[in-house]
């Protein structure tokens, strides 16, 4: 009897403990949808109500405290890029901007690409959001203030050129942001010192090793493969080619004449199609697979979640070639030198193939959104207006005038520092506060007579074709086409690695064919039809 009772008690307590354990264990996965969507909803309905409040309150409470009133107003900013090199609002540039605008920023840099979607879902948005991956999603009147509304209300003298507005105008007639790093073909043509931004691919190779190999020429892709083979034979402990996790495809896509990235569009004879269906794409995939099969790249390289690993390989002398952006040789050299190393990197030419072709369909890089949670939309739009002024653009891009640069009457800044010295640039907050800027100003930062980056960019500029119309094929949030594209892109992300790591060329080709078939099954043709319609409608925007 007594023992039975004890057993019951044991059983009961067991059940209790285990239900708790169960709940905490399941909470991880099941909770995701339930709780997050839930709080997201409440967050959103709140913002709905706050709409009007925010706007009507703002002028009374804050318009009376301009820049000079000692205390700067603090706005929160979320940067949706985990690799972002500046993480705090400090340094001479930030201080100068605060001095001019009376605004300082409380910065949060994303830990991964899911953080912003999570914040949107939970309604937990900061005052400002700076993003490139979620521009579609944030361009939504429920999440952000339309710039046009704020400009007509608070900053009527904030003038933005019509092309930029047209590019960013959504179906509801509003535009919610303007991306930085964008320049029209004419603007680029008019400014010969604007050579381009860091955001272009490049490969750097070890000069000393190249010399030991007898300076073989690298003029074609085959030459490059041969050199990698020589490196592998002579230095078996060395990794022939290490790649930055975000710059795995770009350089070789360009070499094979593929227009656009894996998730982009290409145009031929007035018709638009998805990039993975370009004939050149297969050649690219075969080549990447060959790199792997020959043992020139690491399989692990495709699994890196940290963008520093490749830098470590390169600057600790464990890799021969380092693929990243056009500034990779310059910045690696600075790092090696600071660490006391004696070897140097040299850029490969931007083109090592006669097929090389770069299509600039870019509409710029990232844009700033003034969210509905913003506590002072007026100050925010004025802050952006300052950054968009000529003074603001130069201040953010080059640094403090006089201290960091002086203007050369030829039409470019004489920089008093090396723009490839990442430590200097980042600690002074140069460039990275470009919440509003343009490609012309940014392109000038790269003009340093004699620098490797400048040379690489000028080479690249020579074979770049401009097709900004392609960039206008933009998806509306929550549309069926957006869903299809997201699914296709996600599928490509999974499948492409299988192609790269295929055991034979035949397997690579089969996997590629399978990937295209999968895309078609998900609805590629419907997406392409839609894209063509949009393209025909929008391409006249750029015709004068």
């Amino acid at each position, binding site marked *: 009897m007594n023992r039975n009772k*004890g057993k019951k008690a*044991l059983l009961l307590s067991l059940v209790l403990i285990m239900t708790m354990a169960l709940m905490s264990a399941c909470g991880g996965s099941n909770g995701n949808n339930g*709780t997050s969507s839930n709080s997201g909803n409440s967050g959103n309905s709140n913002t709905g109500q706050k709409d009007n409040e925010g706007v009507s309150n703002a002028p009374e409470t804050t318009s009376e405290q301009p820049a000079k009133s000692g205390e700067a107003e603090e706005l929160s900013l979320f940067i949706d890029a985990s690799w972002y090199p500046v993480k705090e609002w400090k340094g001479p540039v930030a201080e100068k901007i605060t001095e001019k605008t009376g605004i300082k920023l409380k910065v949060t840099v994303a830990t991964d690409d899911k953080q912003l979607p999570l914040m949107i879902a939970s309604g937990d948005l900061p005052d400002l959001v700076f993003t490139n991956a979620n521009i579609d999603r944030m361009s939504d009147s429920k999440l952000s203030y339309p710039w046009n509304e704020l400009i007509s209300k608070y900053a009527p003298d904030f003038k933005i050129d019509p092309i930029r507005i047209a590019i960013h105008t959504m179906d509801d007639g509003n535009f919610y942001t303007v991306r930085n790093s964008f320049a029209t073909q004419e603007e680029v043509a008019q400014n010969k010192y604007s050579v381009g931004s860091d955001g272009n691919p490049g490969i750097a190779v070890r000069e000393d090793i190249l010399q030991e190999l007898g300076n073989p020429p690298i003029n074609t892709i085959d030459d490059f493969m041969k050199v990698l083979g020589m490196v592998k034979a002579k230095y078996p402990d060395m990794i022939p080619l290490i790649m930055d996790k975000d710059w795995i495809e770009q350089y070789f896509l360009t070499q094979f004449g593929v227009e656009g990235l894996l998730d982009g569009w290409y145009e031929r004879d007035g018709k638009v199609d998805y990039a993975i269906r370009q004939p050149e794409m297969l050649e690219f995939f075969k080549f990447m697979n060959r790199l792997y099969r020959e043992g020139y790249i690491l*399989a*692990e390289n495709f699994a890196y979640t940290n963008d520093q690993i490749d830098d470590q390989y390169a600057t600790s002398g464990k890799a021969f070639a380092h693929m990243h952006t056009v500034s990779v040789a310059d910045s690696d050299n600075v790092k090696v030198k600071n660490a006391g190393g004696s070897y140097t990197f040299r850029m490969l030419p931007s083109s090592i193939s006669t097929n090389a072709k770069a299509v600039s369909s870019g509409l710029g890089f990232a844009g700033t959104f003034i969210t509905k949670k913003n506590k002072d939309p007026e100050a925010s739009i004025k802050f952006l207006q300052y950054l968009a002024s000529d003074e603001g653009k130069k201040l953010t891009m080059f640094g403090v005038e006089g201290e960091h640069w002086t203007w050369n009457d030829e039409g470019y800044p004489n920089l008093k520092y090396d723009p490839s010295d990442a430590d200097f640039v980042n600690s002074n907050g140069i460039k990275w506060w470009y919440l509003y800027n343009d490609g012309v100003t940014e392109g000038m930062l790269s003009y340093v007579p004699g620098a490797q980056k400048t040379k690489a960019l000028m080479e690249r500029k020579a074979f770049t074709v401009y097709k900004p119309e392609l960039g206008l094929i933009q998806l509306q949030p*929550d549309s069926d086409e957006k869903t299809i594209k997201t699914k296709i892109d996600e599928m490509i992300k999974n499948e492409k690695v299988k192609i790269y790591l295929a055991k034979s060329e035949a397997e690579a080709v089969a996997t590629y064919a399978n990937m295209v078939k999968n895309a078609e099954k998900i609805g590629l043709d419907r997406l392409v039809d839609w894209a063509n319609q949009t393209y025909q409608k929008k391409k006249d925007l750029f015709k004068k």
Partner: protein
Amino acid sequence: MELDTRVTGMTEKEKTRTQFWKRFKKQKTLHLFVGLGMIFLLVFAYTPMYGILMAFKQYSISSGIKGIFMSEWVGLKHFKEFVNDYQFGTIVRNTLVLSLLKVFFAFPAPIVLAVLLSEVKNMTFKRLVQTISYMPHFISWVVVAGIAFAFLSTDVGMVNKALLGLGLIDKPLDVLTNPNYFWGLATGSAVWKEMGWWTIIFLAAIAGINPSLYEAAQIDGAGRLARIRHITFPGMQGTIVVVLILTIGSILGGGLVGSNFEQSFLFGNSINSPTSEIVQTYAFKVGLKDGRFSYAAAIDLIQSVISVILIFSSNFIARRASGSSLF
């Protein structure tokens, strides 16, 4: 509370309300405990359930909480989409295989360890083993993933360095990236992390067995193995059945070690995704990253329904087979 009403129900039917309140007052401290738990469940488990609605609707996050009720009804569209997804077969297979592997290995492990520990006579050694074995339970999976990297990475991993140094392998093992290693890695690390923790419960069950049974058996000439087989195991049976039922109920989440999502999320990468992508990580990706809440809700709903069916059927079978059951 249930117990309480049953007790009141057992006394004569004529007993009036006043008596019920009297009893209630007497047990108010106990009711307070139960009440808190019930409020917890009501707020965090039952209330959010209305969100299931959106699995059948074209819901968009920007339409807010109203959207759950106002959005267009699309019926089984999301369910069909999931079933027709090109990855459907792979991720369902991965989920099932991982879950079954964990039940197969992670369920017996703590039972065996508990029996072994109960036979250890040296108390210091027993406590030491117990402490060391349950410690990993308190480390979060994020940290475990970091530790795994330090041990197993091809480049800086200790294990690979050691094996290479000893000349046992001539090429580093790509445990973290090769799809062929993922299931072993997941099951192994889950067993390592949770085995000691669950041993505690089984040890408690063993402690509840009357020592006189052992003495009697010893006098009758039963050896150690015979005693384990005829006394320890039957004595643990109730506990084992309850744990098994709960394990099966949560099987799709990884059973009693419950870590399918964390492992696939943290150890998974684009190279081992053919074996590491599971239903939960897929739902997380499309649900949160792509903002398709209706679709994700539909996927998770399928999973929950399967779990409910499993827990009821395993409970039924357990009751028929062994007489002990959860409810």
